[in-house]
């Protein structure tokens, strides 16, 4: 995390991750960081496929504040994931600069927390992740025709490209998976705040139809391939470890 505001430091200084060239998993005891260690982050301009802007939102009603939702979301981020994914974090709450492994759809990769404040937090993905993406989780107040009071809306918004040609070829499948996964997260979050009946709204816009062929070599980082190789080579690693102990 960047140092807190000092002297003329901008007021958002503590919200941003400190600049790093290569990622290291925040929890050194975490065994799932093999597809993150030493990688660079890959924002939407570093991917390969079409650029998509996706949004999922859920109306959490009038009783909970955006600050309370985001504080809870940051503290229990992985707890709200559906069973198809696992967020391998032992950290108490999400902080700028955290680097955490995750497994989704059988593929192990990770995220870096780029930014976090009272009402939002943002992840960047590492090289090799299925998506070169920036994903923001936020909550805010919105006026409603139904109630006099403003309603709290939880949002997951993402700007993403598939990282490489292989993942791009899997985009239709991945998109369907995302359309199950993220609404599942929002339903679990809503339930934790006493909202059992929640409607999830989804919007998808293609921002850029071009594929960035200059980035086709990203496939060398492909976390799907590397997860399979890691699993297949586990017996060799175990045998080597046995010889050295």
């Amino acid at each position, binding site marked *: 995390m960047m140092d807190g505001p000092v002297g003329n430091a901008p007021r958002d200084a503590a919200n941003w991750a400190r600049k790093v060239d290569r990622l290291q998993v925040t929890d050194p005891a975490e065994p799932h960081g093999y597809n993150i260690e030493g990688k660079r982050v890959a*924002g939407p*301009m570093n991917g390969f496929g079409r650029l998509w802007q996706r949004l999922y939102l859920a109306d959490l009603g009038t009783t909970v504040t955006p600050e309370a939702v985001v504080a809870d979301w940051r503290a229990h981020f992985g707890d709200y994931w559906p069973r198809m994914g696992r967020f391998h974090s032992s950290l108490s709450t999400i902080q700028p600069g955290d680097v955490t492994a995750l497994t989704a759809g059988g593929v192990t990769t990770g995220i870096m927390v780029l930014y976090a404040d009272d009402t939002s937090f943002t992840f960047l993905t590492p090289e090799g992740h299925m998506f070169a993406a920036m994903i923001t989780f936020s909550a805010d107040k919105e006026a409603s025709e139904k109630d006099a009071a403003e309603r709290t809306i939880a949002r997951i918004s993402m700007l993403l490209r598939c990282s490489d040609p292989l993942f791009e070829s899997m985009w239709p499948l991945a998109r369907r998976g995302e359309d199950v996964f993220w609404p599942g997260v929002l339903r679990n979050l809503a339930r934790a705040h006493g909202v059992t009946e929640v409607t999830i709204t989804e919007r998808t816009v293609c*921002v*850029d139809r071009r594929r960035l062929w200059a980035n086709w070599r990203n496939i060398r980082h492909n976390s799907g391939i590397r997860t399979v190789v890691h699993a297949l080579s586990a017996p060799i690693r175990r045998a080597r470890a046995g010889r050295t102990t």
Partner: protein
Amino acid sequence: MGSAHMAVTRPAPGAAEIAIVGDVTAACEDDLMTAHEEASDAGATVIVLDFAQMEYMNSGGIGMLVTLLVRAQRRQQRIAAVGLTDHYRQIFELTRLDEAIVLHDDTASALRALAPKEGR
């Protein structure tokens, strides 16, 4: 939280500068895209974003810049950023935006670097 104000000027033929004043968040996307349209309507091939008077930016602001970059690339425009403090310069580097948006200290050096070369 306040909002940003965008002012478009034309520092050189074929170039436009968008001075961004205030807080840069996703909420100012319409203002920035309008400023970009205004800059593009005059045929600018170089767009300089002047952040010297920016007071604050959150991650939504970075996302907005990615969208602007895509629009500029579609129009075959080059984008430079000037007036960034060390803090925001590091954020551009962290997010690798600096690989697509060239960072310069001031508008004059950005224009010298990006202006179309005679006889090419």
